[in-house]
């Protein structure tokens, strides 16, 4: 099969086309496994999470809406939610957000492997640059919430800061990220 779009492969996967299914899994497996591993910090459990993520994608493919995001981020959101569930059920009060150390590695080039599409690599570079514009506190709070599913209260406990400060860091960090990633928004005069 020649290079098909993610949308086409997901559609083929959903209706049971074995070639499309294999291509879809092959294209996304390292990213899905990487995210799961960064969150659960356990190779075997991460693979179980990744397998379940693909099964959920297969089962819920008709619910995917291309206008709300790419197939990749949709699949990674499924993965993130499953991984967070798995961590919470294993470790009711996880303390050490290992994912942050993984992200330090990512800052040096991981997360954009040679296998990644040029579009994804460009997106990763853009997001990494935008994150660099945040304060350390904003960045940590944002990543803990986005990647580990931590609430503001949990972040306040992990970071040793008041809940209000955690909320402010999350909010100001994400607003700044939005404005950096989408500078036209301000030019358009939106609110």
């Amino acid at each position, binding site marked *: 099969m020649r290079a098909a779009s993610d949308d086409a492969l997901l*559609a083929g996967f959903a209706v*049971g086309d074995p070639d499309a299914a294999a291509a879809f899994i092959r294209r996304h497996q390292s990213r899905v496994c990487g995210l799961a591993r960064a969150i659960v910090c356990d190779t075997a459990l991460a693979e179980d999470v990744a397998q379940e993520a693909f099964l959920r994608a297969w089962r819920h493919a*008709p619910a995917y*809406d291309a206008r709300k995001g790419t197939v*990749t981020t949709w699949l990674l*959101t499924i993965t993130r939610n499953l991984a967070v569930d798995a961590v919470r059920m294993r470790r009711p009060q996880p303390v050490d957000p290992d994912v942050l150390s993984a992200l330090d590695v990512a800052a040096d080039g991981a997360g954009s492997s040679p296998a990644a599409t040029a579009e994804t690599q460009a997106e990763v570079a853009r997001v990494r640059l935008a994150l660099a514009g945040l304060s350390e506190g904003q960045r940590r709070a944002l990543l803990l919430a986005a990647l580990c599913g931590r609430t503001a209260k949990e972040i306040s406990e992990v970071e040793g800061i008041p809940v209000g400060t955690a909320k402010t860091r999350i909010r100001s960090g*994400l607003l700044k990220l939005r404005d950096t990633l989408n500078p036209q928004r301000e030019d358009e005069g939106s*609110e």
Partner: protein
Amino acid sequence: MNDVTCPDVEALAAELALGSVSGPERATALSHLSRCASCRRLVDELSAAADPLLLLTPEAEPSIGFESRVLAAALGAADGGPAGTDRPAPGLSRTLPRRSRSRLARAAVAAAVVAVAAFAGLLAGLSLERAPDGVRTALAVSANGRATCRAFAYGEQQAWVFVSLEAPREWTADYRVEVTTEGGGTAAALGTLRLEDGGGTLGATVDVPASRLRAIRVFDPSGALRYEAPFG
């Protein structure tokens, strides 16, 4: 927080976008979003900014056989794959007990059986209605029976259409594919399907519900209509 206001939701918008709000607070906020376009737009914008963060973690190759295990779990049971390849996911089963792989496997088998039955029925000239789960199928066979065009479509607002063409290996060409809609609307172009080595596929989306699609039309390089596959 029953009388939640725009400032309340705006203060919570980032956490809503990140999925880190739960319980009654989330329910109340979502209720407000359902009737406030301004707050909904803010949460959508923040969600769009948060999504790419998931791309940042380092990639990690799974163990050998991962792909076949996923395929076996999702599809393999339908084609008689060896039972031993469908490795259960013990860690996940232990931590996430809500899941039922056997149910998934049965669903996969059922879906595959229905899809095959739908194709078989179309080939036999039976009048089959849509496959379950909103998936619509279409099929056309050339007069000499040597080429087969199949299509799947689903989606309630925006249809995903997946077209495959199987033909003798020597038939290498680019085919233009379009989809027609009920009510005589303008045909929508799906793209070009490259037929080589006996097959070719094309996937695309169209801004029409799958329920309104009428037929797939495939044109050869000379512009002649070669296949017209009506959706069942």
